[in-house]
């Protein structure tokens, strides 16, 4: 029996090593990667209606330039609060090349949040959370990337920092 111990230790060690090989624990694998981005039509939040209309339909904007879909909620502290300034900075840097659309689940608190961070990109309101389910959302904040071919090209759970936004967006530029 003793001669099997090295094999058992090797097998367990191999399993441990394999488990540690995930390069980024937050880059959760998504089954949607490479698949067509699920369409949605959601009401635009009040401050953005003058520029974007009453509702936003994703499919009308696909194919022109890559899209960043960021899902957040104003109750998600501190993660969403940490990410918001970086999201605004990323929009300022990439707004000509990438469309940013942000989905919030709580409109009333969301407006306070938007004012707090001066978020300039369009925000929509998903009262039921249907879009979150359609995109296989694990939590907030979560950022999805859609390429010019209308397919999901990337997903990141947890807040992104400036380098994270750059890395994600560079995949499709």
């Amino acid at each position, binding site marked *: 029996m003793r001669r099997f111990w090295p094999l058992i230790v090797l097998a367990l060690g191999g399993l441990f090593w394999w488990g540690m090989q995930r390069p980024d624990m937050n880059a959760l694998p998504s089954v949607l990667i490479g698949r067509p981005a699920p369409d949605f039509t959601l009401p635009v939040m009040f401050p953005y209606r003058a520029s974007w209309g009453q509702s936003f339909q994703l499919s009308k904007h696909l194919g022109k330039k890559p899209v960043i879909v960021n899902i957040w909620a104003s109750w998600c502290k501190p993660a969403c609060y940490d990410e918001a300034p970086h999201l605004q900075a990323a929009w300022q840097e990439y707004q000509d090349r990438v469309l940013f659309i942000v989905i919030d*689940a709580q409109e009333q608190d969301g407006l306070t949040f938007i004012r707090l961070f001066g978020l300039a990109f369009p925000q929509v309101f998903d009262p039921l959370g249907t879009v979150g389910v359609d995109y296989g959302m694990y939590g907030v904040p979560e950022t999805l990337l859609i390429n010019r071919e209308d397919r999901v090209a990337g997903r990141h759970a947890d807040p992104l920092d400036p380098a994270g936004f750059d890395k994600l967006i560079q995949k499709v530029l």
Partner: protein
Amino acid sequence: MIQVTVFFQAGFKMAERKTTPRDSLVSWLPRAAAIAVGVVALLFSGALAQASVGPPPDLSPEVFQIAKTLRCPVCQGESAAESNSGVATEMRRIIAEQLAQGKTAGEIRQFFVARYGDWILYEPPKRGLTLWVWFSPLVGLGVLALVLWRYLAAARSRSVGADNVSTEELERAEASLSSKTEDQ
């Protein structure tokens, strides 16, 4: 509220009709009854109003049976049936909607697998890499049985070895032991 007012008015009219100077206690009874009926009607109408603005009626048990087999994606160790998070609530709503459309439990589970992968299922599918999850208890039992069998076989062979000692060898051993005892 209209009903409540009508109850009160009817009660007071009854009281007016029945009041006599002879018996003030009896004269107050219809009025008290009218007030009681009015209060009950008020409470009842309040309860009805509450029910109309409250949460929708409970979903069917079938919804929860399916939700129980799905993880709540934003929770720690809770199924979509147990959690009150927004995502779990929406998952239950989607399940109810799809059941109403005539979809089977398997089709509904597949809907969520298409969005979250097999991870969303509490029971991993019996195929591919996840097969080891189903077979590992059997493999574990097999290894345990093997170890036990080898241990018992070794113990049995030791016991059989002791039985095979010849009488001469036993006598020699006893003599050796007794001589050692005498020397001491």
